[in-house]
């Protein structure tokens, strides 16, 4: 596997074709998942992948390498996705702003029932998987982006902060809110499932 520094050097050279293929292989799917999570549209998510790598090619000489290449690519993809969300919202709801941090205190969990299923068993449970996707989609965009990068793509707090252009503290708060919200929603679903089975 090409090291980060060699990969960046190759990508910034006059012959970046091979480096482009390596970067695409490494980051196309994670970028697709981020865009798909934010836009809920597979075609739009594929467009974001293409736009991201094209923008990276065009602007590669301006990238100074202060962050990882992957973090830079996530940032391009996130900004492109946000632009699309913003345009869509302008069409539908002219005055609605993109969600920002909720100033309210952390919500206390209400649904506290044990989950009798392991994550491994849930992977084969189509209904639970659908519920999980609905729960992720129901998150505000600002929480969803943090959750997808931190808990699905497993970026660090610092990498996520750089990719989204927010502080590490904001990443931590948003991640915690996202986790509590998802856990609550899935717990309600499992509680209904248990009561339906009895």
């Amino acid at each position, binding site marked *: 596997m090409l090291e980060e520094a060699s990969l960046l050097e190759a990508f910034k050279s*006059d012959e*970046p*074709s091979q480096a*482009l*293929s390596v970067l*695409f292989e490494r980051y*196309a*799917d994670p970028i*697709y*998942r981020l865009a*798909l*999570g934010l836009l809920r549209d597979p075609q739009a998510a*594929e467009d974001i*992948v*293409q736009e991201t*790598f*094209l923008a990276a*090619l065009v602007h590669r000489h301006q990238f100074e390498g202060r962050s990882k290449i992957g973090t830079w690519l996530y940032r391009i993809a996130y900004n492109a996705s946000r632009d699309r969300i913003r345009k869509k919202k302008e069409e539908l709801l002219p005055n609605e702003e993109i969600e920002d941090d909720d100033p309210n205190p*952390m919500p*206390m*969990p209400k649904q*506290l*029932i*044990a*989950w009798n*299923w*392991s*994550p*491994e068993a*849930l*992977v084969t449970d189509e209904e*639970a*998987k659908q519920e*999980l*996707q609905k729960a*992720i989609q129901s998150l505000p965009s600002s929480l969803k982006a943090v*959750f*997808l990068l931190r*808990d*699905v793509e*497993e970026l660090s707090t610092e990498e996520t902060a750089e990719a989204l252009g927010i502080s590490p503290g904001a990443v*931590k708060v948003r*991640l*915690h809110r996202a*986790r*509590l919200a*998802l*856990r609550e929603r*899935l*717990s309600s679903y499992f509680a209904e499932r248990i009561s339906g089975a009895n």
Partner: protein
Amino acid sequence: MTCEEVVNILSDYIENCLDEALTIEVRAHLETCPRCHILLDTTEKMIAFCRKCSKQTIPSEHRQRILSQLQEELEQRQKLL
């Protein structure tokens, strides 16, 4: 330590980001509080479930098409230089 305090720092506890003294306090609370124990267990299961189920990929034929278009675009740009 109260349940509310545990809720507020649960993610830091999961990430092992708390200092040793706080970690011990949370652990002691979890041993005696079944509700917070469930909260921790279900949060960790939710994260693991998400990691396992949210790995969608670009359909392979679309993926190849996007990469080919990018390589073509690169070639065009290099010809112009």
